[in-house]
């Protein structure tokens, strides 16, 4: 017998509102439906009403966890449009901030993963280890998250060289704890039994669904924008792309732990090599044209597209967040699982719904008819006509007659 289990929109396991409909036969999941769109705010349209400088702050608020991701990606896109090379120091500062963000984001996910399988010790541990890195973010930039450091053409504020020793000290204190965590994941019988072989996304499925980031790298797909299409200071640094072949949640967990260790390695080199000098290229005007920015976010590849018409405001901003690509892979990884394993499988791609909510679908009140763009345009035209009919002065009515 089939039954449908709804999860959400408000569910104790979820921070954000989203809705899953699981069709189950006994305890086995046979179908899954994901409904999102609850928190669509219309950021892309809002960006068209803001100047390039203001848009940087707006895209920072697409997602709080990937605040550096979206700002760097937007700046990359505008710099691609301008065809300019930013100062070396700015590149290194972007790398440092990005890697700090990667560490805190991965630790956050590991904690939540522990929470999802009911192993709260892992949750408390990793979140405790995450605090020093947030303190460092505050010490370097002034805020724990959403630091407002980026600007088109470089960075808004400089990082003081005198503050780097404290960062290195925090990293060396953190490294043994992360290594301990990596060993614990590999040795702990509970974690292993609970994560191994769960939610397997095969390499073929990973390629078919075009998944990105740690989700793809855990399935044996060797992609990383930092290496394939380098930006910021990554070409000058020595680091490895972590690729595992398991495809299950255990591999995704391990990829993230090992990536934190790589991030520590990158940070150490960046702090050592960072050159002195200018950190902001002054940009006078933005010519008409279009640009694309790519960035390897903690969750995968992020793409921003910007089109300019020569004015102060972007004519179009398109955001494609990594979760948008990763979420459809639930169909491949969840079907056939036990219902108790679905929660951790859903969480394993680290879905971020505030990144994903870029569009909304409109239905009529009965919920049956879905409006297409043509219908919506027609409704919009009708409303404009109605308003102009009401607002028009009686003297103007004869003139407007042919329109109304």
């Amino acid at each position, binding site marked *: 017998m089939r039954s449908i289990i709804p999860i959400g929109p408000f569910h104790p396991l979820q921070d954000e509102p989203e809705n899953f409909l699981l069709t189950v036969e006994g305890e086995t999941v046979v179908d899954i439906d994901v409904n999102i769109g609850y*928190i*669509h705010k*219309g950021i892309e349209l809002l960006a068209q009403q803001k100047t390039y400088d203001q848009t940087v702050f707006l895209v920072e*608020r697409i997602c709080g966890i990937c*605040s550096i991701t979206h700002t760097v990606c937007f700046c990359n896109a505008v710099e691609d449009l301008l065809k300019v090379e930013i100062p070396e120091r700015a590149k290194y500062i972007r790398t440092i901030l990005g890697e700090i963000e990667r560490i805190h984001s991965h630790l956050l996910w590991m904690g939540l993963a522990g929470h999802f399988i009911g192993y709260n010790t892992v949750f408390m541990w990793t979140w405790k280890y995450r605090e020093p890195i947030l303190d460092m973010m505050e010490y370097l930039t002034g805020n724990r998250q959403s630091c407002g450091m980026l600007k088109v053409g470089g960075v808004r504020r400089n990082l003081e060289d005198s503050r780097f020793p404290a960062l290195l000290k925090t990293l060396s204190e953190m490294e043994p704890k992360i290594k301990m965590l990596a060993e614990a994941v590999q040795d702990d019988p509970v974690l292993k039994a609970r994560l191994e072989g769960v939610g397997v996304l095969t390499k073929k499925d990973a390629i078919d669904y075009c998944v990105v980031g740690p989700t793809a790298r855990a399935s044996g797909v060797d992609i990383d924008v930092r290496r394939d299409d380098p930006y910021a200071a990554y070409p000058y640094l020595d680091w490895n792309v972590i690729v595992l072949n398991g495809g299950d949640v255990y591999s995704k967990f391990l990829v993230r732990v090992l990536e934190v260790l790589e991030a520590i390695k990158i940070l150490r080199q960046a702090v050592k090599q960072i050159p002195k000098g200018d950190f902001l290229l002054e940009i006078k005007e933005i010519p008409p044209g279009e640009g694309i920015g790519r960035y390897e976010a903690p969750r995968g590849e992020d793409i921003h597209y910007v089109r300019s018409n020569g004015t102060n405001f972007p004519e179009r901003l398109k955001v494609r967040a990594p979760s948008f690509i990763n979420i459809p892979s639930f169909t491949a990884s969840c079907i056939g699982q036990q219902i108790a394993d679905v929660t951790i499988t859903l969480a394993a791609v680290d879905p971020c719904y*505030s990144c994903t909510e870029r569009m909304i679908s409109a239905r009529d009140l009965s919920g049956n008819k879905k409006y297409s763009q043509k219908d919506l345009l027609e409704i919009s035209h009708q409303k404009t006509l109605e308003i102009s009919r009401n607002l028009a002065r009686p003297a103007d009515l004869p003139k407007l007659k042919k329109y109304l």
Partner: protein
Amino acid sequence: MPNLSTRWLKKSPWVYHVGTGGCNNCDIEILDCLTPRFDVERFGIKLVVSPRHADVLLVSGPVAYHIKPRLQEVYKQVPKPCVVACIGACACSMGIFKDAYSVAGPVDKVIKEIDPNAIFVYVPGCPPKPETMIMALVKALQKI
């Protein structure tokens, strides 16, 4: 004789978290309050899984149109008297999303539509630090 329900509310407030369209920043900082650095559970502040058990509603983010009826539904389920804490600049005044087309309004406006006498606490900041949230809750409970 003091109202029994408000006396209990003061002793160990249980909180329920509702994300209504924020950017995750405030939500993470709320979770951060529960983890070892800040650990508000030692004061009896506990995150509960159902609004029917809650004394305080933590709302983060501007209220998007699709989530508005759901937020009102959640508010109806919370036993009264309760405190609604608007966490972050977006929840207090919509912040950067003021002109967005798909946002219904700040939290207080949406909840006052169904209960004009609701009690609000405003915690500004983007995101507010965990210390700020704890202080806001302490101040709110003193006023009740």
